[in-house]
């Protein structure tokens, strides 16, 4: 049984209320930080903990915080990125829905460390009901004096606001999120300047994922060094994984970083193996944009070592034989899954969500979708595989924001590891989908 730090109380009835949350040790980190620690001490603990951004990029949080410019007389902001839109990722929703106070507690403690007088929680549009839950929790926190003026009698005052987005994937990119928060069209900004220097309304801003902010509370409580003992190497602490796909027990699991991937998929504690006794075909380990890996590569690295759930181990071998931990959207596919169809679904998503600012992403994503549609229609040629490869290589790394890469990587990986599936369709001029979902539809239709 792995240690749980974030959602250990998730089964407690009414844990979403302040009363129950407090009774289970909630807001202790605020008390500890505000009364016994200086802001720099909190930042130091986060640095020592080795906590890495849980939104996908895995950038060390303490380092990000230390980049925050602190000019005199200019307000600083903390923005919580709750625009969780990556297909396959739903951990933040679960956390906010079940234990909203964990996020608010983290917001207060983090803001104290950063010296932010105001913070914003940007929740994606589709999560409007989650926004209501968080808003209700904020109201409770204000009433109990955890937010507002002079928290706990100290001279630290803090206001926390909820902003609901319009439901655009691109607004999960931190600069697009800031634009959207300012009331503008959610287009990513051209960097530099980075948000740590000029973010929200031109002021220094830190943008962190929900899980990252929530993880600050246990770090403050147990100390950075103790937190760093969990996990392996530079992947410290616990991570929420959204497991979905053809597994027996889909859901949100909190794991200690460093458990083997095989254990995560097959153990009864977590995913419980592949459903209907099927064999596993492929896994997308960190949300739809990370490279897909076939069974033999997800269970073992190219060197033959067992693959672990860490940033480093999943990334082992680069993109040739590896992938990324990303946001922890763990999608498992069984042997009946068509990789081509799955890729089409992903690419259609990125085409739909491209903001349209820069040309490679605006035009390239649509082009890739149209070619993949040809595969599904059975009209594709063998040369289309090479064309697809060429297009993705011309999008990757040429765009303003990482959406271009997010669209290019799945295409590259699918062709790299499952080229035969594309070629088979092209040669037979026929696409046959044998997936369980498809058969199910035929029976009921």
């Amino acid at each position: 049984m792995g240690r749980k730090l974030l959602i250990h109380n998730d089964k407690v009835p009414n844990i979403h209320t302040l009363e129950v949350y407090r009774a289970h040790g909630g807001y202790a980190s605020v008390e500890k930080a505000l009364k016994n620690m200086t802001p720099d001490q909190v930042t130091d603990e986060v640095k020592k903990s080795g906590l890495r951004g849980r939104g996908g990029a895995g950038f060390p949080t303490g380092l990000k915080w230390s980049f925050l410019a602190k000019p005199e007389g200019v307000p600083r902001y903390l923005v919580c990125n709750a625009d969780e839109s990556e297909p396959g990722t739903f951990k933040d929703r679960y956390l906010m829905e079940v234990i909203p106070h964990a996020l608010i507690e983290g917001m207060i403690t983090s803001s104290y460390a950063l010296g932010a007088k105001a913070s914003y929680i940007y929740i994606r549009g589709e999560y409007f009901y989650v926004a209501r839950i968080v808003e209700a929790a904020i109201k409770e926190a204000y009433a109990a004096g955890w937010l507002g003026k002079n928290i706990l009698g100290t001279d630290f005052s803090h206001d926390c606001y909820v902003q609901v987005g319009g439901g655009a994937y691109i607004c999960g990119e931190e600069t697009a999120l800031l634009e959207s928060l300012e009331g503008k069209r959610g287009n990513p900004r051209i960097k530099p300047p980075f948000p740590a220097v000029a973010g929200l309304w031109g002021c220094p801003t830190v943008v962190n994922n929900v899980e990252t902010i929530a993880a600050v509370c246990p770090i403050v409580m147990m100390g950075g060094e103790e937190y760093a003992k969990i996990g392996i190497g530079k992947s410290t602490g616990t991570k929420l994984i959204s497991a979905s796909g053809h597994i027996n027990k889909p859901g949100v699991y909190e794991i200690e970083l460093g458990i083997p991937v095989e254990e995560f998929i097959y153990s009864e504690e977590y995913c419980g193996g592949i459903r209907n006794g099927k064999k596993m075909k492929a896994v997308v380990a960190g949300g739809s944009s990370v490279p897909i890996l076939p069974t033999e590569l997800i269970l073992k690295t190219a060197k033959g070592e067992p693959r672990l759930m860490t940033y480093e181990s999943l990334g082992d071998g680069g993109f040739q034989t590896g992938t990324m931990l990303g946001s922890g959207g763990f999608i498992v596919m069984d042997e009946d899954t068509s990789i081509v169809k799955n890729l089409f679904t992903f690419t259609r998503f990125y085409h739909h969500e491209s903001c349209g600012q820069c040309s490679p992403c605006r035009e390239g994503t649509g082009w890739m979708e149209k070619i993949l549609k040809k595969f599904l229609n059975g009209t594709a040629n063998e040369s289309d595989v090479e064309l697809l490869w060429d297009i993705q290589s011309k999008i990757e790394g040429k765009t303003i924001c990482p959406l271009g890469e997010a669209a290019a990587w799945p295409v590259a990986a699918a062709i790299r590891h499952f080229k035969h599936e594309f070629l088979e369709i092209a040669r037979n001029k026929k696409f046959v989908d044998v997936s369980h979902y498809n058969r199910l539809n035929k029976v009921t239709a």
Partner: protein
Amino acid sequence: MKVTIDGVEIDVPKGTTILQAARMIGPSVAPPAMCYYTKLKTSGGYCRTCIVKVTKGSTANPNPMPKPVASCRTEVMDGMEVQNFTSPEIVEARKGVVEFLLINHPLDCPVCDQAGECKLQDLGYENGSAKTRYEFKRREFEGIDIGDKIKLHMTRCILCYRCVKTAEQITEKRLHGVVHRGDASEISTYIEQVIDNDFSGNVIDVCPVGALTDRTFRFKQRVWFTKPVDAHRNCDKCCGKTRVWLKGEEVVRVTARKDMWDEVEEFICNSCRYDHKKKSDWVIEGPSHISRASVISQGHYEHLNELKVEAMKHQKALGFMDIDKRP
């Protein structure tokens, strides 16, 4: 600050972008730019044609940048080394960008008013391939009249945002922007409202393609049959310095003067642009300088006399009869 671009070193002031530094060196190293416009703040970064490879970040931090960067929005650092045309990777990437810009662009140059002074034509000629690999239906939009003077063809638009920035920064009221997203993005005035401003006509000049054209000039003349001359008049709204395009004695259109990078020198008002279409309205200074590479210069109107003298010199040397005295 010293920066080396394609092996050529130049000293530039702080805050200069790589593109500006490259332009200081000259066209041999300057990357093409479709969306960047010196006169418009915050322009650039969208089209990605000006991408370059930074092989050395600076003297202080000599690491190369991991990805190609948009030269129009990246400021130089002391000791920076940049590869543009010397990097095969960049040349290939740019080819890709040009292909992306062209897949949804109609190849209707024969009926497009911009033909001959279109940046995308030049770009495609320099960096594109002769064949398209795109086999699907291109994006289509209905043409929109923005007032009685400007025509918008979204089909031809490459979404460079220059007109949006112009409307934002030069005209007083912003009535125009981008709606929708991704490849369904559209330049729009929302309900096709007239851009009712004295400087609205400048959006035509900044448009690199034929998306925004002058309705008073549409289908009148191919640009290479007209003769651009620099002219001026006393104008109380703008500088009054314009380029007047003549066909015989007739003024077919008036535009702002453009520099060697195809950017306007000074924005002009609508009154100069639309209302003064008589030769007598203007004081003509002389032929405009048009690049030798441009199809417009094929009329040889600019150096006609010099060319004639040159030709006669050669003919005399060869022992031919004087051109003017030929029977």
